[in-house]
């Protein structure tokens, strides 16, 4: 449906006096394939190149090299010197600032795509289609309102109606919820996904918010520094992150440094020796005995005071607790290694108490060191206590 192959983009320096070659590339060889009707999300921290990528797809930026194919039609190819302009790509797009034209009414804003390119729709058909689009976003009554007299949420809906009205091949959304307040954002998340899914439109969604990405997407591409680090379903990304960066950007995690002590030829499982003992877990391909690795466990993945016959069971002492409501956030010291654990709020756990932690082997993910090194070493645990920093760009 939509494929990008080997996209590279470096912006020219803004200040000419700085000279060329000083800006870091915004995209370094990105390749993705999006299926028809799929809800595909580009997730990553601010400045990682998501907007750039979306603008390349839209035809608002020109990549330095690579190919973009849409429904079998090549819309960009550096090798073949093809560039289809934005207005000919038949797309819908919701901009981060919504870009609702303030000199038009809601109706005129939404009618705009239908009036372009000499489609020659009769007044009647045009009006019907615009009203149908406004119906879908529940704004029928606002059709004649001048655009400046809309709230943020309403502007967002107008932008959505405008993007959908022309029956685009792909709809592109650039952090559409980031300008809404928290409550509205939760509502719109569900509404937006239901809407595009019910229409069966292929959707590319850009966000830096892991909750949005996980809850809305069919598939996610996690980006960092202009590259796709990992691609997969939300469950893939959460349960089987391939790098320390992925494990920390999507959800919270404990990273426990250790060394592989043995593997076995007949099964995927092996043992990793960490500071407080040996953890038995599944080893990734190509890991050698003696290698330094990180074992990643989610705070939710650790059992507190489970059955005594579980493997990977260790005793520790609770150093602090914080009652969150949905769960009890506790910090446990295991022979000098502190771990973040989410226990049931019904367990009466208090500071200073001894607890037994067990690590079910299929919940432990072994991350290779060179990959782990991407996000830098040191202070690992204290970093993972915080939310991934969500700077808005």
């Amino acid at each position: 449906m939509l494929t990008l192959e080997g996209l590279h983009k470096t912006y020219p320096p803004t200040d000419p006096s700085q000279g060329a070659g000083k800006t870091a590339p915004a995209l370094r060889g990105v390749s993705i394939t999006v299926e028809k009707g799929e809800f595909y999300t580009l997730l990553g921290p601010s400045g990682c190149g998501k907007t750039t990528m979306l603008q390349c797809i839209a035809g608002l930026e020109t990549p330095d090299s690579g190919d973009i194919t849409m429904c079998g039609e090549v819309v960009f190819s550096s090798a073949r010197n093809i560039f289809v302009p934005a207005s000919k790509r038949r797309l819908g797009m919701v901009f981060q600032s919504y870009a609702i034209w303030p000199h038009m009414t809601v109706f005129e804003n939404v009618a705009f795509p239908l009036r372009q390119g000499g489609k020659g729709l009769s007044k009647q058909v045009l009006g019907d289609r615009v009203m149908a689009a406004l119906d879908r976003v529940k704004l029928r009554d606002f059709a004649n309102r001048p655009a400046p007299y809309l709230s943020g949420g309403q502007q967002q809906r107008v932008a959505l109606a405008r993007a959908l009205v022309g029956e685009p091949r792909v709809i592109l959304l650039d952090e559409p919820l980031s300008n809404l307040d928290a409550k509205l954002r939760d509502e719109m998340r569900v509404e937006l996904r239901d809407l595009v899914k019910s229409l069966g439109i292929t959707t590319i969604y850009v966000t830096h918010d892991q909750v949005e990405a996980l809850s809305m997407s069919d598939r996610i591409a996690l980006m960092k520094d202009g590259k796709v680090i990992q691609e997969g379903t939300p469950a893939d990304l959460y349960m089987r992150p391939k790098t320390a960066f992925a494990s920390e950007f999507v959800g919270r995690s404990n990273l426990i440094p250790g060394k592989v002590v043995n593997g076995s030829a007949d099964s995927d499982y092996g043992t990793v020796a960490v500071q407080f003992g040996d953890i038995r877990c599944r080893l990734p391909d190509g890991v050698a005995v003696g290698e330094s690795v990180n074992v990643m466990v989610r705070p939710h993945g650790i059992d507190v005071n489970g059955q005594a016959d579980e493997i990977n069971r260790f005793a520790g002492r609770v150093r602090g607790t914080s009652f969150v409501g949905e769960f009890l956030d506790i910090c446990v010291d295991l022979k000098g290694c502190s771990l973040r654990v989410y226990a049931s709020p019904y367990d009466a756990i208090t500071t200073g108490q001894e607890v037994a932690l067990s690590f079910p082997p299929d919940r432990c993910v072994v991350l290779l060191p060179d990959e782990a090194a991407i996000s830098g070493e040191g202070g690992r645990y204290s970093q993972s206590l915080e939310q991934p920093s969500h700077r808005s760009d």
Partner: protein
Amino acid sequence: MPAAVQSVNPSSVSIRHPFASRQGQVVALALLVLLLVLIAAPLIFLLRASLTPPGELPFFVDTYSLENYVSVLTSPDLLDLILNTLKYALGSVIFGVTLASGIAWLVERTDIPFQTTIRILMYSWMAVPTIVLAFGWILLANPGSGIVNLLLREFFNVTGSPISIYSLPAMTLVTGLALVPTAFAMIAGLLRNMDPQLESAGAVHGATTFSVFQSVTFPLLIPGLFSVGILLVMAMVQAFDFPLVLGLTAKVHVLSTRIYLLAHSDISRPDYSLPATFGIFFLVLAVALMFAYFRTVRMGERFRVVTGKAFRPRRFSLNGWRYPAATVVGLYFALMLLPLLILLWTSFQPFYQAPSIHALTQLTLANFVSVFEESQILRAISNTVILVMCSATLVMVLSVMIAWYAVRSKGRIGKYLELLAFAPMAIPPVVLAIAVLLIYLRTPLYGTIWLIVLAHVSVYIAFGTRTMHAALLQLHQELENAALVCGANWFVMLRRIVFPLLRPQILNGWLWVAAHSARDITFPLFLITATNVVVASELWVLWETPEIPTASALSMVLVLGLLVLVVPVQILASRSMAREAH
């Protein structure tokens, strides 16, 4: 950011809000009284003067009479005057704004080469006084010895004077050209503040480049262009310099020059009551325009898109047209330079003559020698330095304080202060000049440079307050509160926090006021005596004498002095703008 922690004597620590403090209130009241004296009092005198019987000064009679109003309303040429004024203002503004919009679009939205250079040239142009330009145009295109006419006669075999600067259309045209840099600055601002996503949205949803321009960019710019236009019409209705230098010879009178002529009659004792009455009419016209301006500005506010981002505009690719476009802009600058070049040439000549091989042999420095030797000219130069330094500094200090009250205080006094400070926008300088003359004619201030300083402060405070108002809105109040909590008093807070943080804007405002104070001829001419002459009024005197080569040399000295002041700052400013755009 410099912390405003002061070592204060604990007993004097006051963290009460400045409005509550006595100090703050005293300052606010003092400012209010000052503005009333500077701006409201002259207008009251003007009104009083218009109601005195003809030929009397308002101090010496206690009778009221409507005679002046009758004679103004029944004067046969009142309608002509108003029509001329409007034709001149509208014509020059339409021409200037159209040209400026084109150049601004090229510089802000396309990949035209030499963007920074064009910007610097535009912003530095305020260093060239209008009166100097007008002299240059006269030398270029007067019907007798104007170079253009000489060339036409020589090479195209025409007779007579095909081109004359002394006509309403010519005057309108050169005024329009001179207006471009001001209009450029405003329109470039409009373009920079427009969210480029609005245009991208058009492109993605099927619109071609042209139809994006037609259905998005242009309609969005209209309210802004309109309010820029009205603001400039307001300024051009009040304009005095081109109409004086070109219009008097052309016998094309506008309201401002008529008032000047009435107040400076050569044949009879000056009668100030009739010009005062004309002034009242003029004032009414200007105030009406001002209301129109506010209406359009409010309309434009509706269109403003609420995003507080710095935009990276998408630039339109001119491809093969890059250099042709730059050439057109270059031609504009060349046209603007012509008047200066001819003055430069003349300043090295014993008497005015068109450039020729023969004339080249007569180059002389005598004019510059006399500029720096004649005591009258030397006095004009030193007076100008005093005038420029004092009025610019006073205006900026007062403006920061007034704007601070207007922005920060929720009370009434702030509103009054702002309204009063803004009023001079609607008071034509000639009107204020007559009013100032009426008030101070019999005081010791009359005939000193300080009276002109005072008048300039009254006029330019409107500009200063407006720029400082905009700048202060950007400054988070907590920065100031932090200083107050640390024990700084109001003055310390202004000096240590507000002034340093707003330094770039203050410097720019200072420069603007300095340049305009140096080029203004309205107040220096209305208030002229032997002792308070400044360069601008001395130029006019020399030109009228006529001592054209000396006037040319003095023009060059003035332009050079202003360039030295203005250009370095503009270069720095556009550098830092390029950096911020990143």
